Every structure is written in structure tokens, then in C-alpha cells.
């Protein structure tokens, strides 16, 4: 469903709040969930001012519905992924609790990012259901259901383990599948180790905090050293507590990487769609070929048969009866019946050829469109990940500068002891 006049380019979208709510679910049971406030602002041309045009609450499941709908209707698009539902790759001091406010906050940012990705996608931004998601308060779910997207969804796409023996897949898609596997594996590994590094770094910083307390107690018995010890201890406390902000920032970097970890799955979905289409195409071609062969056999079989029959007649003059012979060979079928069969097959073949033609066309269209989006995705990925790596460097620089300051202060205190 698209609306050609509609464009989201001049609209600002934000997921501005997250709220814990309790309600009753479909089975009339109490449940707790988080709802997100989505605000849409249209930007006026002349003064660049934005006006709040829509504001509504959506829960997580709505986002999932939206995405599933998009997956079905835009199989050639690398559909942006949703943020994780459960906190993974967590370093142990960070809460893995889904209701933890920090996690909820990061989720909010992730969902906002999802909507912004959709809005900036040349194709997806025009989708009506997406537009309604942002604007239609009630009955949105019903509207989506009416599209019948669930029926259209190919269950085979979800079957992750299913392999289809495809004879001639487009090589680029094979490569892309490999790439997405590698990307997923390497980013997972990176995130795991990063979490461990964060854990250790946390330990180093926090243990220094103990110096603060002990220095303070020690300073009580010292005359000359006392002041220096006491103030140095204070700096140790500052140092120890600085790690919390540092690691919180790093968590945002991890989230950026996670998005591309989940994008790998979206890439694979497109590849699978191609595989399926190719498989269906090949199956159809195979089916057509076998029907043609059948037809041919039926047709030519008659000529050969009559030659053969003559032979039998000649050799079996006594017992010869045409009906009898044909019954031996064809069962109970009469030539009329055979003719009928041949005719039916010829019709099927005609149909099949049409179908094959359109499937071929479909397939080629798909490959063309998919590849266009994949190229777009690649550029986006390269740009985003480069930015992420640069922001990581910026974080490290900030951490180093803080470290230098704290230790310079501490050194001054020590030298005054």
C-alpha cells in the first residue's frame, strides 16, 4: 500500500517517552508492558519551525506488526531491524533486567532510530501503513490485518533451516549471504569481548576508589602527610566514579553495532526471498519441461505404436484385435481419451509457459530492485559504521583526557605530602 502523494521527508519523528503500563491481554490476563509515545512534527518550509501534528502511544508489539507487514510487502528491501527485546552482550555490572530504566531508555532510542530509518528510506517512507502507524490512533492493527499480509507471508521464508536446492542462484546473492553470516559472527564476537573489556575496566577504576577511603583514615594519624593523603584520596574517588559515565556512553556505541548485527538478518531475508523465487522458477520450469515431455510422449507414442502394432499383428495374426492390443498398452484408455489428455496438457503447457515467463520477469525485477536497495544499504552501512568507529575513538579520547586530569591532580597532592 503506497500513497504516491505522501512523503515523510518534511516530517520529524520522535519517540519521546516510554511508560510502563499494566493491562489485560487477549487471554484476559494481567500483563506489564512498555508503551512508547510517538510524536510527529511537520516542518514548515518558511521558518523551519516544527508543529506537532500527531502524538500517540504504541506498544512494542505494534512495532513488530509494522515490521512484519513491511517484510511481506517489500521483500526486495533490506528492512531496518528493531532493537533487541532482551539485553544481550551485557557486562555484568549492567543490569540485564528488561524493566531496568537504562535499558528501557536505550530501547526508546532504538525504536526512534527504527522509525527514522523507515522515514529516510526512499521506498518505505511512502508506505501508507507506516503513515497510519504514526497518525492513526485507533484500529491501526485492524487496518493492517485487512491488508491480509499474514496470509501473503510465505511461511517458507521463516523456515530458517530450510535449504532449497537451487540450481542457478544469482551469485551476488550467494556472496551476500556469506557476507551477512560473517558480519553477524564478527559483530557478535566483538560485542562479547567488548562487554568483557568493559567489565575489567570497571574493576580497575572501582578498586581505586578504595584508596580514597583508606587514605582518608590514614591521614588522621599523619601530621605532614595528612593533607596530601586526604586530598589525593578525594581524587581517587573521582577517578573511580568516572567510569560509570564512560561505560554508559560506550553502551550507545554497542547499540550502533547491534543495529548492524540485526541488519545481517534483514540481508539474509532478502537473499532467502531470491532463493525462494529462483526455486519456484526452477520448479515451474521443471514442471513445464516434464509436462512437455509427457505431451510429446503421448503424441509420438501413437506413431511408434502403430508401427509396433503392425509388427505384433504380423506376428500375432491369430489373436490380433486392435482393441485388445491397445488395452494391453494403454489400459482402458481409448484414443479419444488420449487425445483429451493431450489437449489438456497442451493447455497446461501454454499456461505454464505464461507463468514461467511472468515468474522470470518477476525474478529479474526482484533481483534488480533488491540489488538497488542492497547498494543503498551498503553505502549506509559503510557510512554509519565508520561514524560509529570514529565516535568510539572520540569516547576513548574523552576518557583519556579525564584520566590525565584526575591523575595530574592526584600527583600534585602526593607531591605535597
Amino acid at each position, binding site marked *: 500500500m503506497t500513497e504516491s502523494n505522501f512523503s515523510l521527508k518534511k516530517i520529524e519523528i520522535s519517540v519521546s517517552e516510554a511508560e510502563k503500563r499494566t493491562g489485560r491481554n487477549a487471554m484476559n490476563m494481567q500483563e506489564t508492558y512498555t508503551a512508547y509515545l510517538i510524536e510527529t512534527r511537520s516542518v514548515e518550509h518558511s521558518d523551519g519551525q516544527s508543529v506537532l501534528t500527531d502524538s500517540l502511544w504504541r506498544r512494542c508489539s505494534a512495532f513488530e506488526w509494522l515490521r512484519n507487514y513491511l517484510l511481506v510487502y517489500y521483500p526486495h528491501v533490506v528492512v531496518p531491524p528493531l532493537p533487541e527485546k532482551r539485553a544481550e552482550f551485557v557486562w555484568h555490572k549492567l543490569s540485564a533486567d528488561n524493566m531496568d530504566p537504562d535499558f528501557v531508555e536505550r530501547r526508546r532510542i532504538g525504536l526512534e532510530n527504527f522509525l527514522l530509518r523507515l522515514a529516510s528510506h526512499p521506498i518505505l517512507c511512502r508506505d501508507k501503513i507506516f503513515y497510519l502507524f504514526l497518525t492513526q490512533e485507533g484500529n491501526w492493527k485492524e487496518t493492517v490485518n485487512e491488508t491480509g499480509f499474514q496470509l501473503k507471508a510465505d511461511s517458507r521464508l521463516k523456515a530458517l533451516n530450510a535449504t532449497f536446492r537451487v540450481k542457478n542462484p544469482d551469485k551476488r546473492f550467494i556472496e551476500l549471504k556469506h557476507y551477512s553470516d560473517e558480519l553477524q559472527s564478527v559483530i557478535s564476537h566483538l560485542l562479547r569481548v567488548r562487554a568483557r573489556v568493559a567489565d575489567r575496566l570497571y*574493576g580497575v577504576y572501582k578498586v581505586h576508589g578504595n584508596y580514597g577511603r*583508606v587514605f582518608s583514615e590514614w591521614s588522621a594519624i599523619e601530621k605532614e602527610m595528612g593533607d596530601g593523603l586526604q586530598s589525593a584520596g578525594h581524587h581517587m574517588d573521582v577517578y573511580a566514579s568516572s567510569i560509570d559515565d564512560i561505560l554508559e556512553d560506550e553502551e550507545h556505541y554497542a547499540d550502533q553495532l547491534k543495529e548492524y548485527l540485526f541488519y545481517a538478518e534483514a540481508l539474509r531475508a532478502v537473499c532467502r526471498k531470491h532463493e525462494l523465487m529462483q526455486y519456484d522458477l526452477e520448479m515451474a520450469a521443471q514442471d513445464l519441461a516434464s509436462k512437455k515431455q509427457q505431451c510429446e510422449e503421448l503424441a509420438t507414442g501413437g506413431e511408434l505404436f502403430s508401427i509396433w502394432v503392425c509388427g505384433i499383428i504380423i506376428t500375432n495374426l491369430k489373436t490380433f484385435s486392435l482393441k485388445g492390443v491397445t488395452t494391453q498398452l494403454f489400459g482402458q484408455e481409448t484414443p479419444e481419451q488420449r487425445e483429451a489428455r493431450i489437449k489438456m496438457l497442451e493447455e497446461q503447457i501454454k499456461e505454464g509457459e505464461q507463468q514461467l515467463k511472468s515468474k522470470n520477469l518477476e525474478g529479474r525485477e526482484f533481483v534488480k530492485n533488491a540489488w538497488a536497495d542492497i547498494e543503498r544499504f551498503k553505502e549506509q552501512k559503510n557510512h554509519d559504521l565508520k561514524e560509529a568507529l570514529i565516535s568510539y575513538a572520540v569516547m576513548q579520547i574523552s576518557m583519556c583526557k579525564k*584520566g590525565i586530569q584526575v591523575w595530574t591532580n592526584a600527583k600534585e597532592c602526593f607531591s605535597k605530602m
Partner: protein
Amino acid sequence: MEGECRASPARSWGLPAGGAGGDSPGGDVPLPGSISSSALLQTEVLDLDEDEDDLEVFSKDASLMDMNSFSPLMPTSPLSMINQVKFEDEPDLKDLFITVDEPESHVTTIETFITYRIITKTSRGEFDSSEFEVRRRYQDFLWLKEKLEEAHPTLIIPPLPEKFIVKGMVERFNDDFIETRRKALHKFLNRIADHPTLTFNEDFKIFLTAEAWEFSSHKKQGPGLLSRMGQSVRAVALSMKGVKSRPEEFMEMNNFIEIFSHKINLIDKISQRIYKEEREYLDEMKEYGPIHILWSASEEDLADTLKSVASCIDECCKATEKRMSGLSEALLPVVHEYVLYSEMLMAVMKRRDQIQTELDSKVEALTSKKADTDLLTEEIGKLEDKVECANNALKADWDRWRQNMQNDIKSAFTNMAEENILYYEQCLATWESFLTSQTDLHLEEASEDKL
């Protein structure tokens, strides 16, 4: 030796030429009253080894000395005091240089042990030569320490590294363990050499110079095992009695020692823990960098950036290693030495208390007229001298020790701070140059696109 004590100054005070009887130490021990001398501190310390010959010459001068504070004859500004305690920084005044190195394993049928080579260079007259090389094992160091404690029960003898490490390594002959021990033994001997009194101890000299056979025969001399046991039994009995009343300053001292001991132990634990956490951080970082290289293999545009990040992480690893080694050189051994020192201090306090208790019990005996009063009075007289000697020795050495401790701790923590500053500076430089290279590339790419 717990022999008789004379309220006499250290023989190392050494007035030149007129120094009757005993040898005067090397010519570079200056006159009293001079400012820059390390020997200034020596004047406060009473050497219980004193030959009686020196008495007459010096006793008059000694009475001028107020042992509780510095005499107006000598400058007592804290600044000059601080300058004086840094013996290591004034090589021109040192006349005894000791190094401990080359640990070697020896295997016999009964045991395996390690010996350390000890090289001594000196210009002191009482040494037969200017250079000595001997080999000693840990047991020998232990012997030396015990002899020094016997001779100077209320002086703060430098601590020895532990016999065994309780936690962690059980293996005695692990390389790190040996190296740590070697460094500690080196420190131990140098601290003795720098001590105004202990440096002239005879057993110390023999330890540094005697050949193996000479040394082992010397070790066998002195109070036998049984008499040593007898002494310690008496000591225990006395300590059970408890000290009746410690003079105020020693109460303060004891209080300080208790709190200091507690705090320094905590700091030791904290420092060890930091080292451990840094090591584990380093291990993870070493795995972190290469993942970026792995990733770069499947990327085109991103490959260079990823490789750069990997090399930055690598640089940071190197910086971390450097920081760790700095810690283990400058901070950990110093803190640990003072942990051992705090144990030593408690032992010294105890010994002082014992001497006082001895006196107190005799005084008590006198007042209750339990035994021969004349004999008791004489004994009490001697004990009073003994107590005064002990107290004065401790007080003087205490001040010296406090100063040393302050400098050592200050220096150790300042080094720690410097190591950290250096670490962060190195990491900063690495990441900043990465950033510059990336933004330069950005500009390059942007200008290319415009073309």
C-alpha cells in the same frame, strides 16, 4: 648485645683524631655541628656496642645532648632533615655500596636452595679491602637480621622479604618470586648500610665480606640455641605481665603503629588487586583488537578504518603493559616493604615494653622488699640505664623511620600517578592520530566527490 649500656654517643659520631680507642669510621664522617651531614642523625643514636674507651672523651658532650629534641647546636629545620634522610640521593656521602644479584640454584642431596651474589664496594678503613664478593642464601639473611635485632632490640631493623608467599604461588623457585625476593634483599642490605648505627655493626660487616667457610664458622658462635630459647622464654613471661605504664610518647607511637599497620595492609591489598584487574583488562584487550582485523577481511570501504582501530587498541595494550610494569616496580614493592616494616615496628614496640617491664618488676620487687635491697637497687640502676638507652634509641630511630616512610610513600604514589598520566597520554595520542587520519580522509573523499 643486651649488654651494659652507657649513655654514650655512637662511636660513629667520630670526632676526628681525638677519637680514643675505637676506630673512627671513614674520613667522610663529618664534625658535629655541620649541616649537611648524614651523621647528624647518628648523634641521636646510641650504639650499644660501644667500647668503654670512648666514654671519657665524649661523655661531656653527650650530656649536652637532649635526646628528646634536637640540640640547638644543630639545625633542626624540617627541610634540612628531609634533605638528610635521602641517603640514596647523596652518593658522595655514601661509603658503602651493595648490590644483590645473580640468583643461582644449588642442589644438594638434602635440599635445593638459591644463593644470591652480594658485591660490596667501600672506602671505609675498617674493611680490609675496597671490594668484596660473596654468596649468601636466604637463611644467612635471616641470621643477620636476628643478630641485628639482638644487638639493637629497639632499633627499627629493615624487614626481610617473607619466607614463603602464602597466597598465590607455592613454588619457591618461580622466576618472578626469585626476582621479587632479590630486589627486596637488595633493599634490605642497603637500608642497613644507610642506617647510622646498623651500618657499623660487626655482624653486618662479616656478612658482607666473609668467605663461605669463615662465615659459617662465625655463625656458629654467639649465644647457643638453648640460651636463645631461655631468653625468649623470659621475654614471653615478661610480655605476659604486660606493660604497666607506657610513657606518653610511646603510647602515641603504639597507636600510630597500630593504625598505620592496618592502613598499609589495606593499601597493599588494594594495590595488588589493581594490578590483578589491570592484568585481566590487558588480557581481554589483547583479544579485542584482532577482532577488528578479522572484520576488515570481509569489508572493503571499512577495511582501513577497522585496521586502524585494531592498531590503536594494540598501542593501548602496550601502554597498559608499561603501566603495569611501572606499578610493579615502583609501587607494589614499596607498599609491601612497609607492610613488613609495620610488623617489625610492633616487634620493636614489644621489645621496648619488655625492657620496661623488666625494670618495673624489679622496682615492684624492691618496694615489696622481697629480696636483697642492695642488689636490687644496683640492678635497678642498670635497668634504668637500659630502659633509657632503649627508649632513646627507639625515639631517634622512630623519627628517622617516619621521615623515610613519608618520602618513600610519597615517592611511590607520585610514581604511580605518573605512570597513569603517561599511560593516558600515550592512549590519547594514539586515538587522536586515528581521528586526524579519519577526518583527513573524509575531507579527501569529500573533495574527490566534488571533482
